[in-house]
């Protein structure tokens, strides 16, 4: 269970998050949508303390952190229960595909190399990276392959929740489907996912719940079908309309 209570965040004097509360039950898939600048990425980054919220409570499983009162250890503990998939992959450039997945297993979980390698191979198979690419460095791999490795890296730690920040936004169009397939597989395995996305059709298909954010607050949330097909709020309707105009294909 993930609980977010009254989370606020300011950058300089701009209020990016104006008191967000959200509950996500285990095994659910939540899609966060909204215009750029609405604070969705910041919210995601606050959940695993890549960004420190100014105010509010974040709890993931047994780990609970109140903003401003968190020690280094608590934050590390929270970060070890979550994993993050970045828009631009952020694979370790000095590590091969398989080493990227193994690193946290050997360094954080202290698994022996052999065990880490086995897990990493299993994860890379799951994201359908061809075996002959395992020893390649990220610079030699396509964006789609890099993002799938990033998902494998996040999965390998067996997190309680996986946070995905626009995982397909930086990809060439023809590579998007492969990555979405992988996320779909992960979702079907019952891992809790929170995805910031612009892929409305994907959200409609995979997400249990959709959250629409605008201007630092949650405007509407509910069952994916309700929010995407029968939005109650005017702001949601306007946003959906503009997105459908811009990307007619994906919706």
């Amino acid at each position, binding site marked *: 269970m993930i609980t977010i209570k009254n989370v606020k965040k300011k950058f300089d004097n701009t209020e990016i998050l104006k008191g967000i509360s959200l509950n996500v039950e285990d095994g659910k898939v939540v899609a966060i949508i909204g215009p750029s600048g609405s604070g969705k990425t910041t919210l995601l980054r606050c959940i695993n303390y890549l960004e420190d919220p100014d105010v509010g409570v974040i709890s993931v499983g047994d780990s609970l952190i109140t903003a401003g009162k968190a020690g280094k250890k608590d934050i590390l503990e929270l970060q070890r229960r979550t994993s993050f998939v970045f828009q631009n992959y952020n694979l370790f*450039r000095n590590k091969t595909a398989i080493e990227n997945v193994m*690193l946290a297993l050997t360094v*954080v979980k202290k698994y022996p190399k052999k065990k880490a390698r086995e897990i990493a191979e299993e994860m890379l198979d799951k994201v359908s990276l061809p075996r002959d690419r395992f020893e390649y460095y990220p610079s030699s791999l396509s964006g789609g392959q890099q993002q799938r490795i990033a998902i494998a890296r*996040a999965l390998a730690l067996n997190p309680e929740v996986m946070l995905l920040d626009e995982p397909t936004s930086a990809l060439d169009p023809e590579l998007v489907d492969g990555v979405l397939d992988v996320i779909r597989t992960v979702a079907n395995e019952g891992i809790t996912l929170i995805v910031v996305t612009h892929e409305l059709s994907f959200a409609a298909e995979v997400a249990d719940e959709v959250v629409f954010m605008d201007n630092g607050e949650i405007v509407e949330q509910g069952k994916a079908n309700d929010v995407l097909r029968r939005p109650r709020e005017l702001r949601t309707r306007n946003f959906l309309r503009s997105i459908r105009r811009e990307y007619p294909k994906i919706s």
Partner: protein
Amino acid sequence: MKLFDVDFFIESFPKILAKLPVTLLISVAAFLFAVIIGFIVALVKIYKVPILQRLADIYISFIRGTPVLVQLYIICYGIPKVIYYEQVNYSRLTAVDVNLIPGVIYVLVAYSVNIGAYQAETIRSAIEAVGRGQMEAATSVGMTRTQTMVHVIIPQAFVIALPNFGNALISAVKDTSLVFVAGVIDILAQAKILGARVFNFLEVYIAAALVYWAICIVIEVLIKKTEEYIRRYERAIV
């Protein structure tokens, strides 16, 4: 009178070359100490450690703003005087005999401190150039700051800093030609001695220059090879 005494040149060359290890030892050792100093100072600046950060700024500013020869004099005259002062006034450090401290020690201290200031900036910018994304990725998989440094940031920063390290090492080899002020006989000091015996300086100085030039070419090649090897992960295979 000859403009250039070839026989004297040929005769002096091996004697000057014989001091190559001295120059190499001083410059390589000072460079390695400097990297350690530079790394610590860089961390102080990156993590904005209070007080130490100010001291780091003053250190870098002072070293970069004063000639290395002056720094060398300060160390060579300063350290023995401090030790002597402690012995006479407080009977401390009595186990040390100032006259027995070899000049090489002073020289190493002076050059390590000098090169360290320059390395601090090189290393700081290299670490910062690795980028936030890499740091965040490591954080997101639960790695601590130290683990992130060791496994992700330092290996990448090293590659970025390598060309600068190469330049710094080459500078170090040349800059150490001032060590005669501490009574250390390196390539240049040896050339001076040989030249002074017969008042023929051009030959020995040219010999010294050739030796310096040769070392620097070798270092350049080595750095280039290292760089090629180490940058392999940046090369596209497909």
